[in-house]
């Protein structure tokens, strides 16, 4: 079963993109631009990691047409996206919503940066304070090796 599914997937994704087709394009350039922007954030559900704007799978085409129909009917961008999420779940969003556990994903970058900066600054400050160790650095073995390298 899984194997067949994967095969089907690979066949679908293998079809190289001729994404948005001429007959889909809306006459109103403003609406069309909005449709393109929305499409870039929506996942082609049967593809691997492709937006419906890039994919030319049948389903992606249907979704693109759907997005345009909603826009023509006067939906706002948010309403179109919400409509699709209602139908297909949040899997359809390429930019996950910052709710619940997803907050971890969204705050990870800034929080990690602050923590790392804290550690970095702390380290730099300790390096400033510490005393330079006195020069007795080389062991006898190292002295011998140094002499060898210096060609003595």
């Amino acid at each position, binding site marked *: 079963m899984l194997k067949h599914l*994967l095969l089907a*997937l*690979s*066949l679908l*994704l*293998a*079809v*190289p*993109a*001729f*994404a*948005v*087709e*001429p*007959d889909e*394009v809306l006459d109103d350039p403003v609406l069309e631009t909005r449709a393109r922007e929305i499409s*870039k*954030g929506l*996942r082609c559900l049967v*593809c*691997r*990691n*492709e*937006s419906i704007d*890039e994919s030319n799978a049948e389903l992606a085409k249907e979704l693109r047409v759907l997005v345009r129909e909603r826009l023509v009917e006067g939906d706002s961008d948010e309403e179109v996206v919400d409509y699709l999420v209602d139908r297909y*779940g*949040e*899997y*359809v*969003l*390429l*930019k*996950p919503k910052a709710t*619940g*556990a*997803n907050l*971890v*994903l*969204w705050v*990870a*970058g800034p929080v*990690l*940066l602050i923590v*790392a*900066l804290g*550690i*970095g600054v702390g*380290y*730099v*400050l300790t*390096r*400033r304070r*510490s005393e*330079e*160790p006195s020069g007795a*650095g080389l062991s006898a073995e190292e002295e011998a090796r140094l002499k*060898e*390298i*210096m*060609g003595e």
Partner: protein
Amino acid sequence: MFIELGHFALVLAFAVALVQMVVPLIGAHKRWTGWMAVAEPAATTQFLLVAFSFAALTYAFVVSDFSLRIVVANSHTDKPMLYKVSGVWGNHEGSMLLWVLILTLFGAMAAWFGGNLPPTLRARVLAVQSAIGAAFYGFILFTSNPFDRLAVPPFNGEDLNPLLQDPGLAFHPPFLYLGYVGLSICFSFAVAALIEGRVDAAWGRWVRPWTLAAWLFLTVGIGLGSWWAYYELGWGGFWFWDPVENASFMPWLIGAALLHSAIVVEKREALKSWTILLAIMAFGFSLIGTFIVRSGVITSVHAFANDPERGVFILMILGVFMGGALMLYAARAGIMEAKGVFGVVSRESALVFNNVLLAVAALVVFIGTIWPLVAEMFFARKLSVGPPFFNMAFTPFMVILALILPIGAILPWKRARLGRALWQLRAALVLALAVGVLVFALQTGRSALGPVGMFLGTWLISGAAVDLWSRSGRGAVGARLGRVLRLPRADWGKAVAHAGLGVTMLGISGLLAWEVEDIRTANIGDRFEVAGYGIQLDAVERVPGPNYRSTMATMTVWRGDRQLATLHPEKRVYPVAAMPTTEAGIDNGFLRDVYLVIGDPQDDGSWAVRTYIKPLANWIWLGAIIMALGGLLSLSDRRYRVAAGARKAAPTDAVPAE
């Protein structure tokens, strides 16, 4: 017969690896020179055996020996010779054999060029390297044997995935693997140093060339992959934040961080334990990358080979090596005392900041990549993390990095003054601001991406130039120019690589900010205008290829009355694999690409045609090449050879080696 010998050689290499991972380690512990000396010939033997095994598999592909399972699954007699050879690593089993080939190559090189290492360290490095090898031999022999025979060989094969039948992608995996696996040497050095309990400037100096080489190959590999995506996937995207791309990008980021922190170890004997940790993490991310690609756990465009059993095996390898190394690290990191002392404003601090940014950026990519998996397993939420998230979460790090890079690069070691550095960079800053403002004035009402990207790119490039110039001392321009040319290659490498990053940033922001797209239907003979270019569809023909059928358009690109190019965008169908591909027609230019794609015939006899004008597209890969070139320059610096060559002759070159 030859195939069986290849198989046998691989088993033999496994046995040698087991010896090499144990005997030298005991020898190093007990100070038995004889036992330690086992490592060197063993490493060479392993490499020769695997090379023979790889040659046997290549032979099977070249002569289309359809008694081998993977040849049947990935080859065909009609396939051009180049792709028969690249088919060896265009599949899971063969690519793992390539992986161990490169692993043993690096191990053998560490043995050959490691003459100046202390014998105990060398024995330990080679033993650790061999342990990694042993794990992967086991993986190949037990779960993915490329030498599996079929009882009843079919008459012909099933052909290689047509998307992979492309010169760009033929050499993409070997370079990536050279990078991934190159980081294994850094890992081995780190673990050996932990066992040894000693990290000093010399260690930093040994590790840096390996890191540099691995990073360089990764840069080329990622660049090739991105270039391939640009011209092959049919809409000119160059980066998709696909899990498999991220898998190669994370080691690249960590490798870049390691490269910089190893400088601090080498020059200033500080940041030691952090550098060790980075070396462990860099290879860890390579293994995670292998896991992601090979297990197919996170589905993606590229995961053409996946099998859960293999995934578990790689996860075990990952667990053993990362767990072991990190435990060793926890136990031993405390003994590494830092020596160097430096002020808050100094090159050292700048490099710490660089490491913070690169490491956190890599972690952000990592979290984004595995988040769908985590959310599904622990929170029962099925969701996607795609390009819009990554662009938003990752870009700020690169912006900050680009802002501080020229300043950090020009700061002196130990103690510096920010005002002085900025004063040195005044020309670069003015130029970059001028470019940014000019671009802002020229483009009206579009995103800030263009001006900001142009500012940052110019700032990086001119900052690198100022960095070189500032090292030339005082005096007449001619004398200074001469001195700039005689600067050590490492200095040139640094400036060139930094400028390369700037070129890539210019390319990315130019392409994203000013791309023009046109989708329409056109009849034969139609001419239409896109952003000042005239595009004419002259003809569409059906043309047979060696192992595909093509629908080839002839299109001409005009600027006014002047014909710029004749392009042949194609749609190909590979009958054996039953797959179509697009071949875009691209007129490459220094400042822009004209990118044409032919689509399906329409009911009224016209053709769907897509036209893109892609400003600065080639700069993205040009920058990657320049970065790799910078790495190569730095790698060829005589400082890395000075200790090795000292026994033979005193250096005669007059260049001061810092």
